């Protein structure tokens, strides 16, 4: 069964969703929770069976799909993708478990299960086309979730989300087809297998173009400035569960894809574009943080904060060294947990008051102390307090990038300042002061169902902040392989200079392991 664990992880929820149509309406929640729990259990099993010391792909599956055109159903995980898969399973589970009573609950849960299939698929796929299939397919359930259960502007928001991403990924698809064509020219065989592509060394000018094509697709998904405007709408209109999944998992597809595709395939272009992308990342960090500060809707604050944090992830990714990339992957997970939790938290007050406007609140720490506490934990995680999950990622990302550019890191480092500004301001508006509104005086504190989701998230937030090793170590091993691959493939001097060669530093690595034994 372990040989096919990834396929099972992908298609079990889909199958369950199809069977879900037969379930009676009242029982669907229980069904959804059990399916998601089984899926989560399977993902934990995957983690358990995963050998953290191996840097390459594990649990590979290979099934010819269109062999004449080089499309194969190839799956595999390494340290980079493993935890995002686990996170996806986890979030679907707690998302369904903590789902508030919605109309058409059955449709919602079935949609979520389909969404889960696509999410796991994206991160497990090792064939560009299979990747693309899941990548695009993930838009549909999200479209439906936003469009059917969203706010007043839901249709605009959902269509914008869909079309924007769709347009970007089509450009990416052209890039993929090019890539396959070059592979064909080089070897005489069609192949879309990413691992095959890794072996291809492309001339630099081609790399630049292809990098740009992939970039459009990824950048819109991330979303990077100036392609980000779909996100506030999507978050603003989406129901809580939609925002949670969107922020926690779907956005990570873009940054994950950068690491899976852009870096190892185009090391020279990555090095070449490092500075421009870092500047975009810095704009994302500062500009969106300022925009977040100006928001009146607390959900929009969290939405813009997501963009800001994604900026740090991008920065870490383009540090092109082990520290930075490991950090950015870790930050993906961290941001998933934290922003997911923040959206859940916003959902809690939205359910009670049906407004997300901050001026409608104030002083609710008096009436909802538990809620305020959990929100406070997540707030602190979001601003990158050490010993929370976010800090590890942010620290490593910035640390990594510092090797490349001092000034840019200094600018990017303002993330910790501007982040604190908008988050604290929002927290103050929501929780501090006297309770002025009559409606707020009798708000119920978080109930059991909500705690069911929030407590585990809080625990993860702190646990991985204190002891990130179980996650960081497998990530590190895989990232080292990626960086070494990039270094070996790099042809330009610039890239050779910017991407470290790890082989020379074997001595250092052994020193580290000695320390670890100690």
């Amino acid at each position, binding site marked *: 069964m372990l040989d096919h664990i990834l396929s099972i992880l992908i298609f079990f929820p889909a199958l369950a969703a199809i069977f879900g149509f037969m379930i009676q309406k009242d029982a669907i929640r229980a069904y959804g929770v059990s399916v998601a729990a089984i899926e989560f259990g399977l993902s934990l099993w995957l983690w358990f069976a995963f050998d953290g010391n191996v840097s390459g792909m594990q649990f590979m599956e290979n099934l*010819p*799909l*269109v*062999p*004449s*055109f080089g*499309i194969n159903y190839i799956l595999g995980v390494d340290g980079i993708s493993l935890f995002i898969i686990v996170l996806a399973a986890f979030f679907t589970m707690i998302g369904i478990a903590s789902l508030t009573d919605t109309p*058409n609950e059955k*449709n919602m849960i079935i949609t979520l299960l389909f969404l889960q299939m696509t999410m796991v698929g994206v991160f497990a796929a090792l064939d560009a*086309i299979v990747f*693309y*299939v899941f990548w*695009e*397919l993930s*838009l*549909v359930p999200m*479209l*439906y979730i936003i*469009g*059917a259960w969203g706010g007043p502007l*839901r*249709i605009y928001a*959902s*269509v914008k989300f*869909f*079309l924007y991403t*769709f*347009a970007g990924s*089509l*450009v990416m*698809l*052209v890039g993929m*087809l*090019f890539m*396959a*064509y070059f592979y*064909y020219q080089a070897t005489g065989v069609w192949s879309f297998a990413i691992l095959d592509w890794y072996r291809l060394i492309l001339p630099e000018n081609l790399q630049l173009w292809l990098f740009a094509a992939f970039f459009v697709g990824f950048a819109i998904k991330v979303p990077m400035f100036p392609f980000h405007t779909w996100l506030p709408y999507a978050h603003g209109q989406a129901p809580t569960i939609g925002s949670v999944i969107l922020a926690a998992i779907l956005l990570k597809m873009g940054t994950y894809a950068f690491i899976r595709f852009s870096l190892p395939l185009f090391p020279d272009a990555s090095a070449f574009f490092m500075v421009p992308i870092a500047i975009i990342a810095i704009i994302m960090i500062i500009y969106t943080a300022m925009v977040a500060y100006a928001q009146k809707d607390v959900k929009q604050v969290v939405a813009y904060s997501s963009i800001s944090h994604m900026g740090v992830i991008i920065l870490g990714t383009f540090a092109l060294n082990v520290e930075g990339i490991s950090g950015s992957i870790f930050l993906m997970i961290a941001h998933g947990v934290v922003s997911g939790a923040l959206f859940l938290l916003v959902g809690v007050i939205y359910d009670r008051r049906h407004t997300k406007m901050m001026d409608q609140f104030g002083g609710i720490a008096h009436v909802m102390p538990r809620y305020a506490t959990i929100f406070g934990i997540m707030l602190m995680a979001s601003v990158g307090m050490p010993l929370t999950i976010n800090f590890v990622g942010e620290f490593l990302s910035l640390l990594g990038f510092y090797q490349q550019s001092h000034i840019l890191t200094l600018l990017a480092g303002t993330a910790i300042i501007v982040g604190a500004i908008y988050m604290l301001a929002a927290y103050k508006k929501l929780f501090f002061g006297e309770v002025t509104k009559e409606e707020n005086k009798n708000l119920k504190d978080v109930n059991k169902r909500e705690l069911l989701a929030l407590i585990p998230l809080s625990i993860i937030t702190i646990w991985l902040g204190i002891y990130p090793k179980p996650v960081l170590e497998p990530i590190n091993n895989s990232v080292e392989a990626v960086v070494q691959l990039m270094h070996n493939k790099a042809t330009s001097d610039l890239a050779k200079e910017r991407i470290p060669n790890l082989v020379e530093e074997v001595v250092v690595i052994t020193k580290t392991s000695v320390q670890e034994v100690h």
Partner: protein
Amino acid sequence: MLAPINVSLESLNLMTLAPMLIPVVGALLILVVDLFKGGLHKSLYVVISLLFLFMDFVALVDSSEIFSQSGITLGVFNLMLIDGLAILSQFIIVIASMLFIPLAMTHKRFHEFSYPEFFALFLFMIAGFQFMVATDNLILVFVGLETSSLALYTLIAMHNRDKSFEAAVKYFTMGALAAGFYSFGSMVFYALTGSVEIHQIAAILGANGYADIGYVLVAITFLLASFAFKLSIVPFHTWAPDVYEGASASMAGYMSIVPKIAAFVVAMRLFEFLIHSGVVWLEVILYAFVVITMTAANMWALVQTDVKRMLAYSSISHAGFVMAAILIGTTQANTALFFYWVLFSFTNLGSFSMLWMSRQKHLPDHQSSDHSYDKFAGMIKTAPVAALIMGLFMLSLAGLPPFALFWGKLYMISSAVTGGYTVLALIMALNSAIAGYYYLKLVVYMFMKEPVMGNDGQVYVSNATLALKTIIGIAAIGTIFAFVAINPILEFITAFVYNSGY
């Protein structure tokens, strides 16, 4: 004293005619049956048509085997040309027709199906298409083209509504003009080369090094205009939306597939040798055609309020998309053309069948046209399964993986990339994104809006019978599970196209 003409029967190779003759025989049989006993139920004719189409199919399988063994076959004084293109396109024609004809088995009674002539004409039309694709003689192409077109005009008109007649008249008149263009173009080629056989024309033009390029271009212009009409290339497309709207949904769906593949095959035969001979003009014109048709049709589709009309424009856009294959002209591109069309026929037939299934006899007040978007509002609540299937077809048309049409688009764009048309590939990709909007619009109406008052979902299945449901089921399964069949289909098509020298 005239020498006796001695033609051996073997040299005629009459077997090459078999696939075309079968539907003709079927049509005659229907007419004869009607002659003896009129007023029989339509199911009889549906089954007879199906039977003959099936025989046709078997004959095609037979000739495809002959082709894979001995290559291109000529027959009947070298009029018939059975090559891979002919066989592939006939497969598409026959299979699409087989999927179409059961749509006559509606729950409600419609005027046209009560006439046996409908089915006879239908079979004649198929024969016409088959002739058209299985020859490289311009005369036979003309005959096949007109046979099928005239039958088609009549079939549209038989829907017996004001709009149907209007559509038929429009289509007919423009078709007549296109026929004029075709014959004029052929005449110029004949004048230049003294031949009406495409391969000879190619050979003679090649031999004299395209000395009279100006006249060649005139010939191409007129032929291009006539096929642009048939393929609904902007600005020759103007008939398409009106005809699709006027015709019944099932007929519109059929029209979006079968006539076009026939025209595509002829266009491939006619234009690709010219492109390969370096007629830059044609390349430029085709490039412009492809881009303008895709883009403009997409833009017009965006602003439609009626689903069927939207699908009409979408079909135009798809035709423009596929036209790129002729421009690119590589084996991969030509393969992509057939490949795309196979997948497109499943999806498009499915979506038009869904419209057909919801065809009402009388329009309620709130509905401005037969298939206005409002009609589908909130469908997920009243008819969830139908909504899901319709949504599926829309997503497939938009090119969303892993549904059928995605693979077609993938392969088509890949062929553009491989053929060196990078910018074109990008334009094609971005057009798919624009197209996403109008397909999505229907999805939005179905899934995200509230149903119109008094709509209990019955309207969406008002026409449903087992036959219709079966067809839709086949289309849906084909659309979803296309990825399983991609490889065999692709290999099959590639082999046939490659062995025909395209």
